[in-house]
């Protein structure tokens, strides 16, 4: 008895000791799950994070390499999730990724909700077209238009400046918000904005890409805009572990090596060789974008998402339409409310709700099976079903009551009456508005880029951010969208020809 007891205590002690040692040796943060480090990034900010090449999966940049290095320190497999800038922090909150690394500045206000771990020094810059005189304070921008990226913290800075300007009776700085950094810079090039705000490292990259068309006119020294930082959910232990990992990379010289690799060293700005200015419309770029695998995949995603969502919407909407057209009952108000809510709420809001808000209430939706594809499918199906209910109700009502009466008088069962008599006639009435809705849905899928679905428009924007060739890539996307839409208009035309029975002249032609 006693020996057995002693052995038990010994074993327990050993197990505890090993557990402690291994935990200390690995020092993994709590957000590392199943050997994976999941990171959110918005790859439209070269050279920090961008898609380097025609393939949407070819993520590259300082930040992307940093993710791989950190994952290496912890012996984890990196999993990088791409999404819109605005989607990243909600995704971090929802537990969909463990870290945000996306050229985001360390900022006191953000640190209220998240922990920030700085990894590289940088400074904010105000840029303008080359030739614009340099300025020495923000107040000199009074009355001018400044473009900034949505979701970044530059806006707050300008708000503070504007308050000061107002106190001196001067006109405020006007702000234009754009969803990506490339669009911000494009406003400067187009002359729509006098200046734009960005980080020195990106400006350097763009200067090279744009043949020196933009220049830095002001480099303010603001403590809130000194460092790029990694963001995580608030957790003192995780923060310490991540700081330790970053420190380890700094000590090894990895950070310096990465800075060299991506040309973001301090000394490089003046010596950066300017490439030739890009041409107005490069046919070669357009054609290769049009035929690229990335665009093909984006278009396929758009098409599949629209088809799948619409088929699901139709399946949901038919029983609802039948119930709403039938005798009044208790479920009527419920179904009417369903239609009213999902027809009334903006599709974008529904997508964001399902993707970002739902997981806060129901943790199962944080798990990896709940992909952007699934979320977009669910949101778009529900949204479209609300519209489809109205189309189906109108179509079913438009079928003469005498039709089902005649079928019943012949002894047909209710199901036969619907399948063989009412539905085929309702289909003809519902088809044109349904195809119309489908074409609309096809374009609505582009909203799903906010929850990181890699559909056609998301692919386009990523390519534009990399190359700064707006016209070529937008045109390629346009051709794809139009191609798909025209194909479905053709299909509609073919199907309508089968409805010759509804038109005396066509029916006669069919006979001949």
């Amino acid at each position, binding site marked *: 008895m006693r020996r057995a007891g002693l052995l038990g205590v010994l074993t327990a002690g050993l197990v505890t000791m090993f557990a402690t040692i291994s935990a200390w040796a690995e020092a993994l943060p709590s957000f590392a799950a199943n050997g994976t480090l999941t990171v959110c990034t918005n790859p439209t900010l070269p050279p920090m994070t961008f898609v380097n090449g025609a393939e949407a999966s070819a993520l590259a940049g300082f930040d992307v390499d940093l993710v791989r290095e950190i994952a290496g320190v912890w012996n984890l497999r990196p999993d990088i999730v791409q999404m819109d800038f605005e989607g990243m922090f909600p995704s971090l909150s929802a537990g969909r990724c463990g870290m945000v690394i996306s050229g985001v500045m360390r900022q006191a206000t953000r640190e209220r909700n998240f922990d920030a771990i700085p990894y590289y020094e940088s400074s904010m810059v105000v840029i303008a077209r080359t030739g614009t005189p340099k300025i020495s304070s923000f107040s000199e921008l009074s009355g001018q238009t400044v473009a900034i990226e949505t979701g970044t913290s530059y806006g707050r800075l300008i708000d503070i400046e504007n308050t000061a300007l107002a106190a001196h009776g001067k006109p405020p700085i006007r702000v234009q918000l754009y969803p990506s950094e490339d669009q911000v810079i494009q406003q400067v090039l187009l002359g729509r904005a006098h200046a734009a705000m960005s980080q020195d490292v990106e400006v350097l990259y763009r200067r090279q890409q744009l043949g020196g068309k933009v220049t830095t006119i002001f480099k303010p020294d603001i403590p809130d805009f000194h460092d790029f930082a990694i963001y995580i959910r608030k957790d003192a232990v995780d923060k310490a572990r991540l700081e330790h990992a970053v420190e380890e990379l700094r000590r090894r010289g990895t950070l310096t090596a990465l800075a060299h690799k991506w040309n973001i060293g301090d000394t490089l700005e003046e010596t950066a060789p300017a490439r030739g200015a890009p041409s107005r419309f490069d046919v070669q770029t357009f054609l290769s974008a049009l035929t690229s695998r990335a665009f093909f995949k984006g278009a396929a995603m758009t098409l599949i998402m629209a088809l799948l969502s619409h088929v699901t919407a139709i399946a949901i909407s038919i029983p609802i339409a039948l119930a709403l057209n039938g005798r009044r009952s208790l479920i009527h108000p419920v179904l009417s409310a369903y239609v009213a809510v999902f027809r009334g709420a903006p599709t974008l809001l529904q997508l964001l709700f399902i993707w970002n808000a739902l997981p806060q209430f129901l943790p199962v939706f944080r798990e990896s099976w709940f992909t952007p594809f699934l979320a977009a499918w669910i949101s778009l199906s529900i949204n479209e079903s609300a519209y489809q209910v109205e189309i189906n109700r109108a179509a079913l009502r438009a079928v003469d009551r005498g*039709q089902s009466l005649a*079928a*019943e*008088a012949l002894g047909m069962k209710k199901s036969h009456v619907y399948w*063989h008599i009412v539905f085929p006639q309702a289909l003809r009435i519902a088809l044109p508005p349904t195809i119309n809705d489908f074409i609309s849905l096809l374009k609505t899928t582009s909203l799903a880029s906010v929850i990181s679905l890699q559909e056609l428009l998301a692919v386009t924007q990523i390519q534009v951010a990399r190359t700064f060739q707006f016209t070529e890539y937008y045109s390629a996307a346009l051709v794809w969208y139009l191609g798909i839409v025209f194909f479905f208009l053709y299909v509609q035309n073919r199907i309508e020809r089968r409805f010759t*029975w*509804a038109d*005396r002249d066509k*029916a006669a032609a069919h006979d001949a």
Partner: protein
Amino acid sequence: MTLNRLPDPEKRLSIRDLSKLYNEFVALDHISLDIEQGEKIVVLGPSGSGKSTFIRCLNRIEPHDSGVLMIDGKIIDQKTDLTELRGRVGMVFQNYNLFPHLTVLENCAVAPRLVRSIPRGQAEDTARRILAQVGIAEQASKYPIQLSGGQQQRVAIARALCMDPEIILFDEPTAALDPEAISGVVLIINDLAAQGITTVCVTHEMGFARRIADRIVFMDKGRVQEITPPEEFFTAPRSARAHAFLNEMIRF
């Protein structure tokens, strides 16, 4: 003619005190009538008198609220197998209600195929034979929209006949037809009677009623006012209401 209080199981149709309400409104008020096999009954009466409601009760498209409806000795009520009943009692609607998305042939073959599970080929053979019988064999592959009113009427009759009914109910079969087409319908209905099929026909067309009726059932305000052979009805109606009705009809 006096009727027994109890329904007569020997008759094709035996109706006793049949009543129908729409909420408070009495659409049919204690209707009693016996109809023989192969008999041709014409129901006359002013608009809104309940003629359509009456014949719709006979195939239970409108269920009656009280009274007895007996067909071939079987009582028709909520327990009746409607598929079986409607196979026995066919109906031709006022505006035909042909299925616009089906060809003439499919209009005729669809119910036998779905309701009786008859194979398509066989159902279509039967349909062709019946279309020939009503004189529109050559229209089989056309859609209803391509046909004239008279032709559509014949399709509607053929469609009902394809279910091989014992009784056919007609609601205003001549309302939209020219005189020539009306004569065609007269021939068809007489032909049906010759085959032993009972017809109950609601109409506004006095000439048509006179040509086909074995007996006239005159209704007003949901009640049967009189049941009379046509020669007598048109020359010496028994009820004052029928008298007034006929005078009204002559004036127009």
